[in-house]
C-alpha cells in the first residue's frame, strides 16, 4: 500500500500554504513536524480529501483518492486538530453515530466501541454527555472515533495535545502496535512523541518539505552542534541575540542552556548528544531574538 502526494499545492489567495509537496508513505509511523503556519494541517486535510488542492494530487497505489472516494474513506481514520462533537450526545451515542457514518455493522460497532472506550480509558464515562467532558477526554474520543473502522491509513492532527503523560505514553504504545501494517501520519508540536514512535520525520516549513528522513539521520544533522552551557541572566540575553537557544533551565542563580550552533559558542560550553528537539531548533530556529 502506497500513499503518495505529487506536487501537492494549496493556495489561499496570495498565501501558499502547501508548496509543491511530493511525499511517499508506506507502512509505518510518519511524524509531521513544523512551526505554526507551516502547512501541516492543510496538508493533512488534503490527504483526507476534505480540502481540494490548488494543484497536484494524492494517490493511493497510483489511483487518485478523489476517484477512489468512499473506497478510500473506508480505510481511512482521521482525527482533526479541533474535534467537532455534539454536546448533547453521550460518548457511546456519538461513537455509534460515527460508526453508522463509517458504514459499520451495528453489532460489530457495539463490540468495537466498547473495546475502544476501554482502550482510551473512557469506559466508565461512556454514558456521560460530551458537553461534560474535559479537553483531554474529548481528544481521547477523537482518537477512538478515528480507530472505529480499523483503518489502514490513520491521519492524526495533534493527537496528544491535552493528554496527561500517562495517557500520552499509552497512546504512543497503541500507535506503535498499530503501525505494523498501517500508514500512520501524525502531526504534533510535542517532539518527544515523534521521537518515541516515528520511523520517519517530515520537517515542514512555510509549506515546503525541508527534510524527510529517519529520526536517527536527522539527529546526525546536528551531531557536534549541540552545546550545554551555564550562564547568568545578562549573558543569556546576549546569547539569545546570536544563537538559537533550545532548553533553558534555571538553577539557583544561573541558567543551564542548550545552544545549537555550528561552532562552539562559549569557551566553557560542552558538546552533548543531540535530540530531535535540537534538530527542530536547528532547522526552525529556537528562542532567537
Amino acid at each position, binding site marked *: 500500500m502506497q500513499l503518495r502526494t505529487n506536487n501537492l499545492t494549496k493556495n489561499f489567495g496570495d498565501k501558499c500554504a502547501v508548496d509543491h509537496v511530493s511525499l511517499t508513505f508506506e507502512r509505518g509511523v510518519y511524524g509531521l513536524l513544523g512551526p505554526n503556519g507551516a502547512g501541516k494541517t492543510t496538508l493533512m486535510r488534503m490527504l483526507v480529501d476534505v480540502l481540494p488542492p490548488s494543484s497536484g494530487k494524492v494517490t493511493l497505489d497510483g489511483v487518485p483518492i478523489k476517484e477512489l472516494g468512499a473506497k478510500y474513506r473506508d480505510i481511512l481514520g482521521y482525527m482533526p486538530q479541533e474535534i*467537532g462533537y*455534539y454536546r448533547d450526545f453521550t460518548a457511546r451515542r456519538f461513537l455509534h453515530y460515527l460508526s453508522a457514518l463509517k458504514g459499520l455493522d451495528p453489532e460489530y460497532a457495539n463490540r468495537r466501541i466498547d473495546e475502544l472506550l476501554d482502550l482510551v480509558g473512557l469506559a466508565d464515562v461512556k454514558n456521560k454527555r460530551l458537553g461534560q467532558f474535559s479537553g483531554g477526554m474529548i481528544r481521547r474520543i477523537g482518537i477512538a472515533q478515528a480507530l472505529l473502522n480499523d483503518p489502514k491509513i490513520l491521519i492524526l492532527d495533534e493527537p496528544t495535545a491535552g493528554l496527561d503523560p500517562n495517557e500520552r505514553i499509552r497512546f504512543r504504545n497503541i500507535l506503535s502496535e498499530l503501525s505494523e501494517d498501517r500508514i500512520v501520519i501524525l502531526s504534533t508540536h510535542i517532539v518527544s512523541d515523534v521521537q518515541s514512535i516515528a520511523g520517519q520525520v517530515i520537517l515542514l516549513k512555510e509549506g515546503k518539505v525541508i527534510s524527510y528522513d529517519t529520526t536517527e539521520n536527522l539527529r546526525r544533522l546536528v551531531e557536534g552542534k549541540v552545546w550545554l552551557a551555564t550562564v547568568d541572566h545578562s549573558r543569556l540575553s546576549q546569547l539569545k541575540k546570536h544563537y538559537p537557544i533550545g532548553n533553558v533551565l534555571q538553577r539557583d542563580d544561573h541558567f543551564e542552556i542548550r545552544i545549537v550552533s555550528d561552532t562552539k559558542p562559549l569557551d566553557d560550553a560542552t558538546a552533548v548528544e543531540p535530540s530531535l528537539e535540537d534538530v527542530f531548533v536547528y532547522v526552525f530556529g529556537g528562542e532567537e531574538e
Partner: protein
Amino acid sequence: MNNKRGSRGHLFRTELWALVTDGGTLLIFLAYMVFAFGACFSGNFRDTWMQVINGDIFVTLTNLYMPFFLMAAILLVISPIFAGDKKSGVEEIGDTCFYGKHAWKVCKVQAALLYILVLCSAGYVFTLFISLFSKTPPNFTQRVFELGNSGVVMTNAQFYLFSFVLQYIGLLFLTSIVLAASSKSDDPIIPLAVGACLCGFELAFDFVVFSPILWEFNLFRLLKPFTILVPTTLFTSPLKAILAVNSTFVILTALLLQVTLNGTLKEEPKPQPDLMQRKT
C-alpha cells in the same frame, strides 16, 4: 477483527432517530399537547384563544393551529442539520467516513423528509385521540362542513386524509427551503431566519389579498386545507386549485432538494471487497 459492512439504511435510521429524539421535537410536541388539551377540555380557553371551524375541534386543531407547531419544529430541528455540523466541526470528521459527503447528505435529506411525515402523523394521531374524548368527537361518516359552492363533496374521514396529504406537501416545501439554506450556510441561525421569513411572508400574503396569485399559491393554502376548497377568482373549481397549487409546490420542493444535494460528488459507495482484501 471482522469488519462487517453496515448498510446505508442504518445511517438513515440513525439520522432519523437523532431528529425524532431532538430536544426541540419533544419540547414543541409537549407544547402542542398542552394546547390541544386546553382546546378540547376548556371552553374558556377555546372561546378566548381559538376560532372553531364548524364546531369540529379536530379540524380546527389540525387545520388552524397544529401547522404552526409543526412549522416551529421544522425551523428548530431541521435548521442545524447541515449548518450545525459545519459549525461544530463534525462535518470535517463525517466527510472522511465511508458514508460521508454525498451519501451522508442524501441520508440526512431522506431522514428529514421522513421526520416530517412522522411528526405530521404523530400530530394527527394525538389530535384524533384527544378529540375523541372531547365534547365534539369527530364523526367520520358525516359530510364535511357545508361549503355551498364547493364542487368537492367528501366525508369527514376523507377530508382528514385530504388535509394530512396537503399539509405534508406544504411542510415538505418548508423543509426543503430550510434544508437548502442549511446546506449553504455555516450557522444554523441563517436557515432558521430564512424559514421564519418565508413563513412570515406567506402569512402576510394569506391575511391580506395583495394579489390573487400570491394568495392562491400560498403555503397556507396547503397548511389550512379547508381554504383550498372554496372557489376563488383565480380558480373557480377547487379541483383545479388543488392540482395547480400542489403541483407548484411539489416542483419547487424537488428543485430545492436538488439545490441541497448539489455541490457534492455523486459517488455511491457500493458493497465491494475492501482495498486491502483485494490486494492480498
